[in-house]
């Protein structure tokens, strides 16, 4: 199971995938990468334990990436994404950031746990990875619409 694969065609859509900095849960990451590839995406999979800086570096290498997709299972999403606001303010991560997994510590999740992640600059929070393709489509359409208006 290689961590990156070659773009298949001209029109290939690229996404950057990874697991948050302190987090080594990898199974969902493997499966999501497979599922997106099966749908034709070029997946730059950074794997587990990926700090924000590594996502920005990958984005610099792949400026065509439509989105950065981050998984966090161990409950540490908030601490692991502390550098996200600065990175975004500096324009080093100017594509949508999608986050999913188990996003806070404990068995009782509160809406505040989600809210503070949005405030860090996460654009979309998903629970079901099956929704990823549709979400990516929608984000791209929105971006295209925005670009059309802007140009």
């Amino acid at each position, binding site marked *: 199971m290689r961590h990156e694969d070659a773009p298949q065609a001209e029109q290939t859509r690229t996404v950057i995938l990874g697991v948050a900095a302190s987090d080594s849960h990898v199974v969902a990451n493997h499966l999501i990468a497979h599922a997106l590839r099966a749908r034709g995406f070029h997946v730059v999979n950074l794997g587990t334990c990926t700090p924000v800086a590594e996502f920005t570096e990958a984005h610099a290498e792949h400026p065509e990436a439509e989105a950065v997709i981050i998984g966090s299972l161990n409950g*540490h999403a908030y601490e692991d994404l502390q550098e996200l606001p600065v990175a975004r303010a500096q324009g080093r991560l100017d594509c949508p950031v999608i986050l999913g997994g188990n996003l806070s510590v404990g068995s009782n999740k509160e809406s505040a746990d989600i809210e503070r992640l949005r405030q860090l600059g996460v654009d979309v929070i998903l629970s079901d990875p099956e929704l990823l393709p549709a979400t990516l489509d929608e984000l791209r359409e929105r971006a295209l619409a925005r670009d059309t208006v802007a140009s």
Partner: protein
Amino acid sequence: MTDPVTPSEPPELPSLGESLSYVRELGKPTAAEVLHTARAEGRVALQPRCGVGSHAQMTTLLQDLERHAAPDILTLTIDSHTRLKRFDNARAALLRNPADLNGYPLVTHGWLRGRQLNEAVRAPLEVRHGSPDARLLFRTAVASGITSFEGGGISYNLPYSKAVPLTESLAAWQEVDALCGDLARRGLVVDRELFGTLTAVLVPPSISLAVSVLEAVAAAREGVKCISVAYPQGGHFEQDVAALRAVPALAARYLPEDVEVHAVLHEFMGVFPRERAHAEDLILYGALVARLGGATKLITKTYLEAYGIPDTRANIDGLLLASRANSPLLDFIQLDEERIGHERELILREVAEIVEPVLASGDLHKSIATAFEEGRLDIPFSASRYARSEVIPRRAADGAIRYFASGSLPFSARTRKLNEQGLESDDGTRIGDMVKGLTRDINHFLNVFGESPTIPS
């Protein structure tokens, strides 16, 4: 508690000698002694996972668990930042909101607080973590008077980090083991538990046990005298019992006689059912596997497993339910001994085929690192770049975990054939999308209980 969130200044670590006399004065049995007694009494010792960020709450958590469920050994589960030596992040989270931490940051709290925890309960403590390099954590644990320490140079690297070379983690764990050897010579046997659970999901028994054998050999060479071999319940009864029963044979074959070796079962570590009744069926099942497989110790789960770190009540309930497996009223249970014997033979052969070429070489560390590089050693779903994950496990129709692909593992033709046979009856699943099938296998217990999967299917 009026203690500040973190101690203002990390106290300097005491000498090994001072720690040794502290343990003696503590007046509680060591983890190794508790394990020894449990085995002698034919009981499965029970241990929860438990760790919260706040020192005050950690103290209460341990005390509540002890008061209501009296586990044989208590745990300090360490937070993920500390595991990866992200001590600054651990401190930041602790200052912001201790409840944001998924474990107890022992290094940040410091060994004096470790001693406070130790003194707050009767049971000995184990540190459970997942650190490729645990040297500082180990020293802090010893200074805290903690007599059991989990991990190993392979099992706490590959599932727990992305970019730490195996030679580095093996060297770091060699230091830990050497200190344990030192302590053993000075009269304190620290229980060293090896994390055969690995990435927990669909781990073929022989991969789990092969990694433990290699780590155990390395540890024994450094003078470790008490080794717990942890094995993750895979979900197939006879296979799991066989794996546990393989441990004594492996110890006899690969380890010096004066090392005490215990089999430890982790209640199912994969995707847990969400409904409480289903989760409890699985918890009881795991506990019965431990008893019937002759495990010395069981690490328990809770009915909140699918949701997140459990609250104290759920943790207590999980322990109490699991403790039913120690009931004196279950002697009526008989097993399919023939099938178990067959599985055990298969496991022992596979382990031998995997470890013996590695053990044959002179430099064990280098030989391990190279083998992983070349895929002669491998684990599925590696979190690390330093394993290939070309091994693909699948469930046979009866639920047993087999090698769908064994990558470059040095398996004999016979072993390969037996694994193929195991999957052969698995009609239908070899055809069609492999990932789909794999997902179904991962969601095994959801299927058993008719719960809907939450992943694409």
